[in-house]
């Protein structure tokens, strides 16, 4: 079914299908729910304003994932650049306990989540993106290949290598693996 991004029904259909995936991907690149929401909104705004036609739902989905992923990567790069400034401000402000859902969950599963994040952050970018799209976006190899512009075989290899590296860095604590 052809999708036009300015068509109300088409937009709603794509939004309903893609929103969770996009937020998950953006969240696992930025590790900030508010930022992820903003970026996904921005991606959908671009989607509408570009007024594009897509041969299928999947094509629209791949386009959106590509845009959202790039927005998130840019955000991370920018905040790294401005990181020094932000750190100063944070140091000046009174340290408050991490608020909301994120904070509570972090307290409960704190250590595991911390270790998983550290392991994922330690991956080189080409492996990290593939594993985020696979494990958190739950995309298949074909979709990952389309989003990243690489072959399915390449996706297969990268997923495998990323898992191997993650196993290595997480197996320090056997208790979590078994």
């Amino acid at each position: 079914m052809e999708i036009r991004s300015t068509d109300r029904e088409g937009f709603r259909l794509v939004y309903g299908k893609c929103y969770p995936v996009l937020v998950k991907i953006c969240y696992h690149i930025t590790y900030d729910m508010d930022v992820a929401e903003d970026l996904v909104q921005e991606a959908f705004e671009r989607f509408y304003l570009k007024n594009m036609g897509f041969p299928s739902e999947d094509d629209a989905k791949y386009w959106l994932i590509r845009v959202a992923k790039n927005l998130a990567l840019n955000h991370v790069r920018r905040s790294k650049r401005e990181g020094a400034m932000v750190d100063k401000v944070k140091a000046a402000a009174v340290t408050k306990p991490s608020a909301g859902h994120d904070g509570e969950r972090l307290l409960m599963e704190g250590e595991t989540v911390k270790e998983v994040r550290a392991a994922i952050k330690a991956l080189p970018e080409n492996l990290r993106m593939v594993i985020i799209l696979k494990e958190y976006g739950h995309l298949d190899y074909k979709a990952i290949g389309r989003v990243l512009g690489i072959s399915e075989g390449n996706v297969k290899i990268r997923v495998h290598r990323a898992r191997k590296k993650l196993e290595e860095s997480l197996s320090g604590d056997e208790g979590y693996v078994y």
Partner: protein
Amino acid sequence: MCIDEALLSTYLDGELKEPYKSQTEEHLSHCAACRARLEKLKALGQLLEADSIDEVELSRAKEKTAGILEGKFFVEGGKKPSFLRRRIEMGLGSMVTAAAGLVVVFIGGFVLFGSSRAQTSEIIPSYTVNADSANVHFVSSPQQGLDAYSLEEILSYLDSRGYNVDISLKGVQPIGQ
């Protein structure tokens, strides 16, 4: 022979094609070591799942953003947001570059167009300054300054006007005094 790690990872993702898929299953049915490796891979996936977004949180975000987008694009009789109302994100670097660019354009505009009457009137027809190189004159010219006269000429002029000027070099005394 046991199954390759990469093959196992592909099998776990359900992306292994026939006949490899049934061969792998057949092997797994009698090889405990490979089953253990598969379980380990599955455990890794579950471990990664520990860091996932709460579903309630996700649907709240979905509703919220849907509301914003519907309001922006699909409200009855609503218009597309104008260029000015769109959020423009800019880093510090690009902001500095843009500012510098504006300054260059501003000054460059004056350099290129500001001095020529013809072009100024072309750009702003109602407002033309009568200030091109044809009718602008230097107020002071080098011919009228003191530099144009020698020291003797200045002295004799002052002498003729009745001034008694004594000129000496600082720190140098005439001989015999």
